[in-house]
């Protein structure tokens, strides 16, 4: 039996469908989750292959210790031999704890289904290589890197059972959360428009935002741009920032330093716009334009808008 943990505190995200789809490829899936998302909403996980959803309403999901107990309880309850997490903030906190508690090897950040020999691929050296991890225990834990598998519908909505597990009280208390509305979260974005020092100053980001808006993309930036405060820190991608693997990454005025590439080289398609034909980024790109961002980007936005209009 495959147990999939899902953080549904903000409803169901694409990565939760990915995790269920992944689990379904390995066997029968039961989902364990917590919080207040309605059973009606949760039952949609059945469409991706879950046979049942268990939900603990009394756990808010901010305390990794409580969640670990919850998942361990569910694994025992359903007789799971594999637990799947999404490799997000919650998965990164809970999966390692569960590994110790359950004495099960953890594959952290899986990018593919297991091979015939059971080994699972993960990115290592910040995406510069791939490692194959062999789990040496009979129980296994896999945390799945977002955007590694296409969510796939395979069934109808499923039963949702409210359960109560004895997980004690949480030691981590949330004091406040500031959450901007309407933005596309970067790690989940399928399309990303990103810009670097080539943009010269924060006042020039309008053209980047317009381009992003034209294709409904999230925005990102290189590290120096976040460091000097032109853009918020959470947009910084790369080795020391967020690692992303969208379907499309458009890099404007970014040189393509190895530490930047480390966070974006998992992108399916890379477009580079740079004045310097020698910019290292072109070596990692699928499509390149040598040109001035201030001319090329508005032209590209206009061309996309024109194209979209023909698609209506």
């Amino acid at each position, binding site marked *: 039996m495959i147990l999939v943990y899902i953080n549904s505190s903000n409803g169901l995200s694409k990565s939760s469908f990915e995790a269920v789809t992944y689990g379904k490829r390995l066997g029968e899936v039961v989902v364990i989750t917590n919080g207040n998302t309605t059973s009606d909403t949760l039952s949609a996980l059945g469409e991706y292959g879950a046979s049942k959803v268990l939900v603990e309403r009394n756990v808010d999901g901010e*305390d*990794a*210790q409580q969640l670990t107990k919850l998942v361990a309880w569910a694994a025992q309850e359903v007789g799971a031999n594999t637990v799947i997490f999404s490799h997000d*903030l919650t998965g*990164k*906190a809970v*999966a*390692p*704890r*569960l*590994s*110790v508690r359950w004495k*099960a090897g*953890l594959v*952290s950040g899986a990018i593919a289904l297991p091979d015939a020999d059971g080994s699972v691929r*993960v990115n*290592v*050296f910040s*995406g*510069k*290589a791939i*490692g*194959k*991890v*062999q789990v040496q*225990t009979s129980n296994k834990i896999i945390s799945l890197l977002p955007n590694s598998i296409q969510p796939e519908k395979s069934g109808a909505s499923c039963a949702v059972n409210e359960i109560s597990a004895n997980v004690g009280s949480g*030691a*981590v*208390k*949330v*004091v406040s*959360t500031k*959450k*901007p509305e309407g933005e596309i979260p970067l790690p989940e974005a399928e399309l990303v428009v990103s810009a670097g020092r080539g943009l010269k100053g924060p006042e020039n980001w309008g053209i980047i935002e317009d381009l992003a808006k034209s294709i409904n993309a999230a925005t990102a930036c290189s590290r120096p741009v976040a460091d000097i405060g032109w853009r918020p*820190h959470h947009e*910084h991608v790369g*080795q*020391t*920032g967020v690692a992303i693997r969208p379907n*499309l990454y458009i890099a404007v005025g970014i040189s393509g330093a*190895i*530490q930047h590439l480390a966070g974006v*080289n998992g992108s*399916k398609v890379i477009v580079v716009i740079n004045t310097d034909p020698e910019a290292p980024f*072109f*070596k*990692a*790109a*699928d*499509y*390149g*334009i*040598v040109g*001035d961002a201030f001319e*090329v980007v508005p*032209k590209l936005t206009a*061309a*996309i808008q*024109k*194209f979209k209009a023909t698609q209506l």
Partner: protein
Amino acid sequence: MKILVCISKSPDTTSKIAFTEDNTKFDENGVQYIVNPYDEWYALVRALEMKESNGGQVTIVTVGAVADEAVIRKALAIGADEAVRIDADPKDAHYTAIQIAEYAKNNAFDLILTGKETINYNGSQVGGMIAEALDLPYVSIATKLDVNGNGLTLEREIVGGIQVVEVSLPAVISCAKGMAEQRIPNMRGIMAARTKPLQVVSPVAVEDLTKFSSYEMPNSKSAVKMISPDNIDELVSLLHNEAKVI
């Protein structure tokens, strides 16, 4: 406050990545090791700042071989008071975490800090494993850390926003960008580091739960298609028809 900072080494970020022994082993030939940036820039520096303002002691711990003492001395040069090296090969996160937890058990730390992840194996595992082994609360990927009475106030970047949390001590925290600024060791620090205590501890018996069986290089990109800035419509059409991304 007694703070333990977990320090790992990682290859210098510009290192060429290659493998030997039939792609089963990382090729260390010519590789320069540095202190893992998250451990150094964020965890260690924040620990030192807390010591400077509230007093206390900063101990660093590494699971590694004698050769790793160069990296340990660098962390001492930045300002840690003392170092512990657990003399073992940190080949699996669980193995590494249990070694650190065993050491910590006998030394009553108020706070254990790790980096967000190592930049070689990128597992983000060791901190959570230490916390579970010691039955302590764990806040992962914190971007701000302040002492607040008998506990801590922390910030974490959640999807598109910031979450503020409180936790009591002792606790384990993994540290990310935002928490502190990189410090460059000065000559005095480097000299002092030479004589700071570095204790070597024998490992306890722990099983490995996982193993890297082999490595491969990612598929290299086919050559880039260059498009003239005067022909932007072609790019749009390639993205739609060929790449199928818009």
